């Protein structure tokens, strides 16, 4: 009888102290719960990609590297373009293209190709971001307008967020040794300009805007197209929307 009482008391006090420590330090995942879209009139940024319009010219990748001081090596990218080739036997190959790639050897005479297309990718700026939840030091966070940023002063470079991102949108910057990712060109959009990749896209395959705006290229894009997001089953609530997306694209 006495033994059970002491055990329960000890157990309860441990539970309570754990909660207290978590409450004081305020680094529990509950801090990163999904953010709701703010009311009309406040910005809530989103991104649109017309898969049908992308010509795979990689101007966007070039512009992003110029604008955001991303290392020039092809391995480090904030945005990239994938080339999908689905063959008649049902196999699909995916390859990220690089700026200045030689023209590819495949031609129409390759009868094994069923269909082929390009898919631009970037950080999905999820409303419920996995990367923010896992950051042990609160260095990555979501702004009021729905952009996920990295605080490079407090990032310890543990790469947990790089692992956690289901879209592979993050990389470790080789100079600063901190996590780096697409910011929707936060310095540009806060001045009312377009992100660099949207600015240079020659076919308007990339569209950017405020999801709360009544009339904007972005809201028109959402109204006029059949829309899909990447890996919707993960409940990350991505804010990069794809029009005419093939089911093979994940």
């Amino acid at each position, binding site marked *: 009888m006495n033994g059970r009482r002491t055990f329960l008391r000890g157990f309860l006090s441990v539970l309570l102290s754990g909660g207290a420590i978590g409450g004081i330090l305020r680094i529990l995942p509950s801090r990163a719960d999904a953010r709701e879209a703010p009311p009309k009139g406040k910005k809530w940024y989103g991104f649109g990609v017309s898969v049908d319009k992308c010509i795979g010219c990689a*101007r966007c990748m070039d512009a992003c590297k110029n604008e955001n001081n991303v290392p020039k090596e092809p391995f480090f990218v904030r945005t990239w373009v994938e080339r999908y080739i689905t063959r008649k036997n049902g196999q699909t190959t995916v390859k990220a293209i690089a700026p200045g790639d030689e023209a590819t050897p495949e031609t*129409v005479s390759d009868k094994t190709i069923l269909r082929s297309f390009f898919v631009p990718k970037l950080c999905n700026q999820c409303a419920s971001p996995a990367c923010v939840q896992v950051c042990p030091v609160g260095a990555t966070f979501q702004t009021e307008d729905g952009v996920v*940023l990295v605080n490079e002063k407090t990032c310890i470079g543990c790469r947990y967020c790089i692992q956690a991102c289901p879209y592979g949108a993050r990389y470790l910057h080789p100079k600063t040794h901190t996590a780096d990712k697409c910011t929707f060109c*936060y310095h540009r959009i806060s001045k009312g300009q377009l992100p660099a990749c949207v600015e240079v896209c020659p076919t308007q395959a990339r569209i950017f805007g405020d999801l709360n705006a009544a009339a904007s290229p972005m809201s028109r894009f959402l109204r006029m197209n059949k829309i899909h997001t990447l890996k919707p089953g993960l409940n990350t609530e991505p804010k990069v929307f794809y029009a005419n997306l093939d089911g093979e694209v994940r």
Partner: protein
Amino acid sequence: MGKLFEKFPDPLARLIVVVAALFALGAFAYFVLIPKPVKDVEMQWADAIKREKARPVKYAGFHVCEECHGEIQKKKQTGYHKDLSCETCHGPAKAHTENPDKVKPAIPTARTFCPQCHAFNPSRPRGFPQINPVAHNPLKPCSSCHNPHDPKPPTTPKECSACHGEIARMKAVSHHVQLECTVCHVAPQQHKVSPRSVKPSKPQVREFCGKCHGKDAKEKLAANAPKIDMGEHGEKYVCWQCHYPHSPEVEQ
């Protein structure tokens, strides 16, 4: 104080004092010694947002260029490149807007530049103008025939393949390689001058294909063409709902 300790055995009393001192020290360190910005993530985030917003802009944006280069802008407005931003080809130009005389944006003239968009690539969407950079006027710079601000074919094209290259290349490796475009399409002369307002004709009925592929087709061209019974084959569909005429699929 002394009374309190009398209740406990001596070792426990000492322990309580030590633990209390540690707690006090911890609290002092946390609340007094550690400055607020180190503890408060909200402050760190606000700071990070401020830093992010202060980063330098390198692409000036499409509406800036026309202030000085209005003439080029006007020319570009009506051409196929009207939706292109100047910086798509000329590169980041914010530095040029701040110091127009000293910093000049790039003018890409190499023959490798335009094919980044216009080299033939089967993954590109249908109808996007593409060329084969090896066969298309080798060694000639693109701008010697095409004005990049208002690109169009330099002369009225004689061959259909000048504009419909993708279809031409597809047809060239198909069973229809022997057929001229004009066997199936009637292209008015005016189509070559204003391609979008005057369009060539397309076959409308099943019987058109039947002239070669019908069971009792008499067309000389089609001596070896696969034959089908027009009454049984395909039922309610027109031929091109299943077969792509520029590259007809056949059982292998």
